[in-house]
């Protein structure tokens, strides 16, 4: 299973903090976005349109990155920490 974590605005959109997907031993960010899109179409589209960054096991990856069974994927909206 692949664990997908949602943060900030995406958590609000998804209505949950995380999801789990069974996509076999190996998949890609694109295929994962299609799986997410079945329940949250807007989020799947944001991933495909690169409006959010994707991390795998806490490292930011490119859209063609391979994801393995057991990985932790996070969908990261643009950051806004700090102040000013």
């Amino acid at each position: 299973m692949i664990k997908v974590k949602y943060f900030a605005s995406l958590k609000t959109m998804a209505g949950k903090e995380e999801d789990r997907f069974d996509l076999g031993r190996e998949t890609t960010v694109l295929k994962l976005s299609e799986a997410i899109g079945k329940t949250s179409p807007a989020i799947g589209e944001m991933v495909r349109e690169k409006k959010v960054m994707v991390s795998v096991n806490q490292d930011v990856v490119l859209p063609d990155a391979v994801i393995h069974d057991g990985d932790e994927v996070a969908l990261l909206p643009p950051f806004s920490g700090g102040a000013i």
Partner: protein
Amino acid sequence: MSTATESRVRIQKEDFSVTDEIEHMKKVSANIGGIVVFLGTGRESSKGETITKLHFEHYPQMAEKKLEELRQKAIKDFGIIDMSIVHRVGEIDIGENIVLIVACGEHRQEAFKACEWAISELKRTTPIWKRETTSKGDVWVSPTP
């Protein structure tokens, strides 16, 4: 209020003491001759809206990892002696402390440069998000330059 600890980068709900954090860093080296501090605080207005409360969320572990990478790069690239970074998460009232960066150098020039670079880089690379509560509701904030 939490006190400064050995850890140079921290993400915490509790408030921090600016004085304690600086005093803690002063003990790192007798060669420190200049300390530059950036303190970010909760502002009451944004884009014409009055903010009543702020909420910060982070990606645990990844956010701390990014802050430590940032600290290491600041030390290496700017030649400072050390840097500490503390960022608060959770509910924060207007006027309260949000983020503190303490850059310590032998001289002021490298400390100024490192501190300014660090807050810009933090906003760009660290998975922390801000939500503002206004009279019109709650809004997740888009990045600012």
